């Protein structure tokens, strides 16, 4: 699948932003670089692509400009040669649409994504700073071996460990040998429990009959014992009754005798003797009450008769109450009247004083001077007008005086300025001629530039100093920098080759020595016979053979035999040591090679040394030409030549500047010459002269301004004096008119003659008079009202006194008091009379009640007495009580007799039977017989108890064999448990089989895929690091494996020990390998990188571009960056094969 175009319709800050990746061209990598500055939206574009594939998340961080519900991206995908136009909306359902806006199922896109989830896609194929590191760390550091992680990442099977763990723990929870916590163990235990329960509860069928027989026997035994015990109980009962009846019989006899004399007494009593006692007490108390009440009635009647009542005085009470308010007013007036009269007199005096203030003629009634409020207001207004005019006139006069003074000052100042003379010659025209505003800055910058150029020149010259030699001028050039550097580089090259060669030479020498020793050791230590030795033995044998062949004598034969033996021994020894011999030959061969190499190195070394010497000589020649007395090494010489070039450059700069600024400097000098006589200054440099001339020009301008302002001031003061004069004349006329209207008003307001001039000073006396007049009329009214109240009160009081027949006292108030006393006394007498009447009534009714109750008590006594025969005294309550008491005792005895007779009946029978049966029996006989029976009974009870126990045991045993279903239920449970056990074992087996299969399959899969993954990763990493890390390897670490990168020197490093840039390269290599792996499974997807080369150096960035281009050859690679240099490098590496898009 490849991305042909991507459109961010509404996403992030984009609206309808489109990228066109065009058609894929065969033989040209599908590699694109999207370049744009920070925040141009590169990451947004990558995210947009992921949204197109996987939809929008519930809360989308890219919904900041467009609302979440409006977000939309679309794109065109090439899938296996087909064009797939897709639009992704942010709706909940049906978010994937085709070109005709028809809803597509998610499967339409999922089918082309292998089984990669969004997370996998991000971590594997959409790399940014975060995902490249996170995904990479997971691959390298996660628990499990790297091969598996690589393939699972590539295959999208991300959680196989989880599945295996889950199955393992499932199997473990079902069954483990000898474990007690597994399901199988639990079921087995439960099964054993159930078995035990069945054993405890169940009874075999054979026991059933035995139990039944036992019960039958026990039952019979128990029945026998019960009947024996019953007969003993019967005997005991008869004896007990007889024994109890004996005392009863004798008591019956005694009672019959005692009751004989009281036959006529009542059979039962209506009254309780205690009730009679209470009745007697009540009678006594009532008699006492009666006497007391009679005495009280006599006393009260007497008291009442002694009271004197006066009805006419009683009415006074209400009449006095009607007068109460008048009386109060009378008392107040008595206190206030005098005070008010005095105030009235004072007010009169005040008014007279105010009249005097107005200086009216003596004897004028002040009241005639009181004016109305309206008149007063009118007077006030007129007076105010007059006063205002006077004040304004005064103010204008003062202002006129001030204006005249200012006019005088202005005239003086003008005269002063005219006398001031311009003694100095003006400088303005001169400065203007030289255009000082442009000349001055040019002069300054020229001076500055020349100064710094000179400094630079001096410094570079100083830098040339070397080996104690200094230079005042730049030495003439005989050798260019390029030549000098070439010389130095050549020398360096020769020198380093010489060193390497020397090292190798000595190394070869060492190796030769070691090999020599080894060969010697092989020959000597193992008794090995070398080829020369063997050959000489053979030659010797051949020689002796030819001797022997010709001679055939015993001597030659012996010699030949000895030689044969020696050769045989040698051959056999050589055969025995054939391996060592082979080695020996190999080593000798190596020695020859080494020897040749050593000679070649030595030759080369000599040649190199010659070359180095020649180069040094050339350098020395140049140094002498520059004036150095001692030889200078080529490298230092090159450095020095570079410095000399710098110095001559500085010299040229200084010269050029001097020429450029020549004219400016000349103008400045001329101006200074013109200014100097005008300014008469101590110092004559250009800067000071220009500055002083500018100050002088400013002074001239200021003086002109001052003169103009003095003229303006004079004119304005003259105008002011005229204006004030005119205003004063107007005010005087107005004042005259106001005064005459004031006089007229005063004359018409008063009936008496009043001094108007005095009045114009203040109207206060008129106002005081008006206020005092108000006070006076108020007081007069109050006094009249009080006097009327007094007269009314005196009249009323004297009327009442006359009615009550009382003589008048000195004042009406005193008479009023006496009348009140009389009324009170009359009321008190009346109250006493009423109280006595009430008490008398109560005493009389109490007496009547007591008498009634006494009669009732006597009636009761008579009724009770009737029950007794006449021979018994019952005349009083006391005697009645004695009779009742005796009758009670008689009734008690009769009852006892009846009870005894009936008890006897119960025990034995009628009184006659009893007498007959007990005639000759004594208590002693009966007691003895009873104790014998008790012993027998005890014995029988014990036997019965045992029999019952036996019977109930038998019964219980039998009951246990009831038809209850407990055992059947347990058996059923047992069966179920057995089934469950079987089921669990089978489930365990199924799980375990599945697990074993999966583990084995995964292992094989891993082995198949691992090596190719590792190879691909290794190659990509080597490419990315330009060969700095040529190999990858793994190393077991406990249960896991660590990935190690091996650098050119053979040092193994873990991912975390690599620099960030190199680590990123490793992680990129892993992804490149995964991409290749996916591609081999026919899954090609667009691969995005978001500026992950930031930490790469230039040459590795170049390699990374190549890796991207390689990915582009298999599938599609898109790189997003904001670095121009990455774009440049991509162009440099891929030329026209990369497409650059700009945002």
């Amino acid at each position, binding site marked *: 699948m490849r991305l042909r175009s991507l459109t961010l319709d509404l996403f992030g800050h984009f609206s309808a932003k489109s990228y066109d990746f065009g058609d894929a061209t065969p033989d040209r990598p599908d590699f694109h670089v999207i370049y744009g500055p920070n925040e141009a939206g590169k990451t947004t574009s990558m995210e947009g692509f992921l949204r197109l594939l996987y939809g929008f998340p519930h809360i989308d961080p890219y919904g900041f400009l467009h609302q979440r519900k409006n977000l939309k991206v679309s794109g065109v995908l090439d899938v296996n040669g087909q064009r797939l136009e897709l639009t992704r909306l942010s709706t909940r359902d049906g978010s994937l649409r085709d070109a005709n806006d028809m809803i597509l199922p998610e499967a339409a896109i999922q089918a082309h994504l292998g089984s990669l989830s969004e997370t996998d896609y991000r971590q594997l194929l959409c790399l940014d700073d975060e995902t490249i590191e996170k995904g990479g760390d997971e691959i390298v550091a996660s628990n499990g071996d790297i091969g598996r992680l690589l393939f699972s990442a590539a295959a999208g*099977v991300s959680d*196989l460990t989880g599945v295996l763990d889950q199955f393992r723990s499932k199997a473990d929870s079902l069954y483990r040998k000898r474990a007690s916590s597994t399901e199988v163990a639990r079921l087995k235990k439960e099964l054993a429990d159930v078995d035990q329960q069945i054993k405890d509860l169940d009874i075999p069928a054979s026991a059933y009959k035995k139990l039944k027989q036992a019960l039958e026997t026990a039952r019979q035994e128990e029945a026998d014992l019960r009947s024996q015990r019953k007969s003993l109980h019967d005997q005991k009962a008869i004896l007990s009754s007889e024994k109890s009846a004996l005392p009863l019989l004798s008591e019956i006899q005694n009672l019959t005798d005692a009751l004989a004399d009281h036959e006529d007494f009542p059979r039962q009593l209506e009254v309780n003797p205690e009730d009679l006692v209470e009745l007697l007490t009540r009678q006594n108390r009532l008699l006492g009450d009666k006497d007391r009440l009679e005495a009280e009635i006599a006393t009260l009647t007497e008291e009442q008769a002694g009271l004197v009542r006066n009805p006419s005085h009683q009415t006074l009470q209400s009449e006095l109450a009607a007068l109460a308010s008048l009386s109060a007013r009378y008392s107040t007036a008595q206190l206030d009247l005098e005070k008010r009269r005095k105030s009235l007199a004072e007010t009169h005096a005040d008014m007279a004083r105010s009249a005097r203030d107005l200086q009216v003629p003596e004897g004028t009634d002040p009241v005639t001077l009181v004016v109305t409020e309206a008149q007063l207001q009118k007077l006030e207004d007129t007076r105010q007008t007059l006063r205002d005019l006077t004040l304004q006139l005064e103010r204008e006069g003062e202002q006129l005086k001030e204006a005249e003074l200012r006019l005088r000052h202005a005239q003086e100042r003008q005269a002063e300025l005219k006398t001031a003379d311009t003694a100095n010659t003006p400088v303005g025209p001169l400065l203007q001629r030289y255009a000082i505003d442009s000349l001055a800055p040019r002069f300054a910058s020229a001076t500055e530039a020349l100064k710094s150029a000179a400094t630079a020149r001096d410094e570079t010259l100083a830098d040339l100093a070397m080996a104690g030699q200094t230079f005042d001028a730049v030495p003439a050039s005989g050798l260019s920098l390029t030549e000098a550097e070439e010389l130095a580089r050549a020398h360096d090259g020769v020198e380093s080759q010489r060193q390497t060669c020397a090292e190798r030479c000595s190394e070869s020498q060492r190796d030769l020595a070691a090999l020599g020793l080894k060969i010697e050791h092989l020959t000597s230590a193992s008794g090995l016979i070398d080829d020369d030795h063997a050959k000489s033995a053979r030659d010797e044998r051949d020689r002796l053979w030819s001797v022997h062949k010709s001679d055939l004598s015993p001597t030659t034969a012996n010699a030949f035999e000895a030689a044969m033996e020696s050769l045989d021994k040698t051959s056999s020894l050589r055969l025995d040591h054939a391996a060592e011999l082979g080695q020996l030959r190999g080593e000798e061969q190596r020695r020859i090679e080494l020897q040749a190499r050593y000679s070649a190195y030595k030759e080369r070394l000599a040649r190199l040394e010659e070359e180095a010497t020649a180069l040094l000589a050339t350098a020395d020649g140049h140094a002498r030409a520059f004036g150095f007395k001692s030889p200078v090494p080529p490298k230092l010489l090159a450095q020095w030549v570079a410095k000399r070039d710098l110095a001559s450059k500085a010299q040229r700069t200084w010269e050029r500047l001097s020429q450029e600024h020549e004219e400016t400097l000349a103008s400045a000098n001329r101006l200074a010459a013109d200014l100097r006589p005008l300014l008469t200054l101590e110092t004559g440099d250009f800067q000071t002269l220009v500055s002083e001339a500018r100050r002088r020009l400013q002074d001239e301008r200021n003086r002109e301004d001052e003169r103009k302002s003095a003229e303006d001031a004079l004119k304005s003061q003259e105008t002011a004096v005229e204006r004030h004069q005119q205003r004063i004349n107007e005010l005087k006329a107005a004042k005259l008119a106001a005064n005459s209207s004031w006089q007229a008003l005063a004359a018409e307001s008063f009936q008496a003659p009043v001094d108007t001039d005095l009045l114009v000073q203040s109207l206060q006396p008129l106002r005081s008079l008006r206020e005092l007049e108000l006070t006076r009329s108020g007081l007069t009214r109050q006094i009249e009202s009080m006097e009327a109240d007094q007269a009314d009160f005196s009249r009323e009081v004297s009327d009442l006194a006359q009615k009550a027949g009382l003589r008048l006292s000195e004042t009406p108030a005193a008479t009023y008091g006496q009348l009140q006393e009389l009324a009170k006394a009359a009321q008190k007498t009346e109250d006493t009379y009423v109280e006595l009447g009430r008490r008398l009534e109560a005493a009389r009714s109490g007496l009547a009640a007591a008498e009634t109750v006494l009669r009732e008590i006597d009636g009761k006594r008579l009724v009770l007495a009737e029950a007794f025969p006449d021979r018994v005294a019952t005349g009083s309550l006391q005697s009645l009580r004695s009779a009742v008491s005796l009758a009670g005792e008689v009734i008690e005895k009769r009852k006892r007799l009846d009870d005894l007779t009936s008890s006897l009946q119960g025990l034995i029978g009628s009184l006659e039977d009893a007498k007959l049966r007990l005639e000759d029996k004594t208590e002693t006989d009966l007691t003895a017989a009873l104790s014998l029976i008790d012993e027998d009974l005890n014995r029988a009870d014990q036997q019965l108890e045992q029999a019952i126990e036996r019977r109930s045991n038998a019964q219980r045993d039998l009951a246990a064999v009831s038809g209850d279903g407990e055992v059947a239920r347990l058996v059923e449970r047992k069966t*179920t448990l057995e089934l469950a056990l*079987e089921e669990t074992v089978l489930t365990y087996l199924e799980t375990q089989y599945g697990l074993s299969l999966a583990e084995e399959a995964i292992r094989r899969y891993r082995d198949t895929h691992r090596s190719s993954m590792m190879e691909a990763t290794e190659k990509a990493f080597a490419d990315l690091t330009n060969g700095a890390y040529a190999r990858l390897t793994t190393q077991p670490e406990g249960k896991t494996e660590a990935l190690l990168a091996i650098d050119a020197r053979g040092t193994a490093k873990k991912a975390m020990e690599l620099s960030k840039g190199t680590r990123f390269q490793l992680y990129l290599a892993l992804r490149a390998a995964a991409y290749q792996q996916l591609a081999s499974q026919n899954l090609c997807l667009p691969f995005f990188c978001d500026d992950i080369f930031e930490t790469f150096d230039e040459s590795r960035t170049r390699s990374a571009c190549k890796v991207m281009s390689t990915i582009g050859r298999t599938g599609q690679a898109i790189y997003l960056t904001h670095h121009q240099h990455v774009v440049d490098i991509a162009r440099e590496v891929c030329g026209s094969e990369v497409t650059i898009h700009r945002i």
Partner: protein
Amino acid sequence: MSSIKILHTADVHLDSPLKSLALREEGLQSAVQTATRTAFSKLIDFALTEEVAALLIAGDLFDGAQRSAKTGAFLLTELDRLKAAGIAVFYIKGNHDAENPVTGEVSLPDNVHVFDGRGGKKQLGATGIWIHGVSFSGRHAPESLLSKFGAPEEDAVNIAMLHTSLAGSQGHDTYAPCTVSELSAMGFDYWALGHVHKRQVHASAPWIVMPGIPQGRDIGEAGPKSATLLTIEERRISVSEVPTSAAEFCELQVDLEGCTSDDEVRGRIRARLQDLSTGLVSDIGLLRLTLTGSTARKWQILRDQDLWRETAGEIAANTGRIWIEKLKIDLSDPGAETAASSAVAELEKLMASIRTEPGFQAQMSELLEGVSAEIPVRRRAELLPDEAAARQLSTDLSSAGAQTILAAMKGASE
């Protein structure tokens, strides 16, 4: 002569337990435990309500393995109820009764007539009905017992009781062998047979009736169970079925062909269980459910099989009558051909090939041998009678195990 009713049953196997994993559920335990007792009690209840004249028990009243005296005690209580109502019981012993000691120890009430091994006949009260019968005298009866029957009574209804496997079935021992035609020729009006657990009316003139077991005890005895009621009017016999089972075993396959969502799957299971529940004769159904057909949900269902087991259980519980005793998943995947390139697909192929390798098979056999020792002896003998069975079991389990773990892997990579 007014109509007389006689109830015929056999193979009660009192207190023989039900074999179902569904009984792990406590709710079910209280409903169906001691189901053979419940069925027998129902039978007695029916006899009392219908006022039958006699109950015929044609052998295997007791189960061979259940030897508790309590079983006898329960039987006595029930038979006493018949005695109180004046109902006679005729009983011949079957092979299981002969081996069970309880049979001899229990003294049956006097309304029960037990025929002995020599055979005999007895009149049913004052009616014109004679009952003939022969008991097993040992565990086995390899020879025919027909010769022990006497001639039928003249002018009477003659009923003969025999415990027999008839011609027998392949692979099983034969018990008192005889054929239907031999029975027909004996001149009896009704043959009250016992021994075969599945009801079958072999003939109607004369009647030859195998009533079947009154309560099925495992999936092998599936379906509703009953006793047989004879109604005799004017010497004519008519026959009807009386349901007795408290619970019945049933099997059901639900076809999930074309299901694409879990909701659909649930819907189909629910519909089928509803139907099943409606047609159930007993109060409770113990269901072995198999999901079949080709569906895209295969792997999800397989992966979440525990969940589906629970779901099916819940759906069954909602019917109020059905309990799932086992859920089997036998689905195929319509898309199996397409996704062949993924890693899981490759693993699937690898697993399939590893399964056939002798090395892995040896490993499986070893594991099976070791672990099967944990299975109780009786179950083990049934499960693994011979080498071939063991091999087959290993193959089946490894296939299922591979499917299950594959389902989980597919789930993990989803």
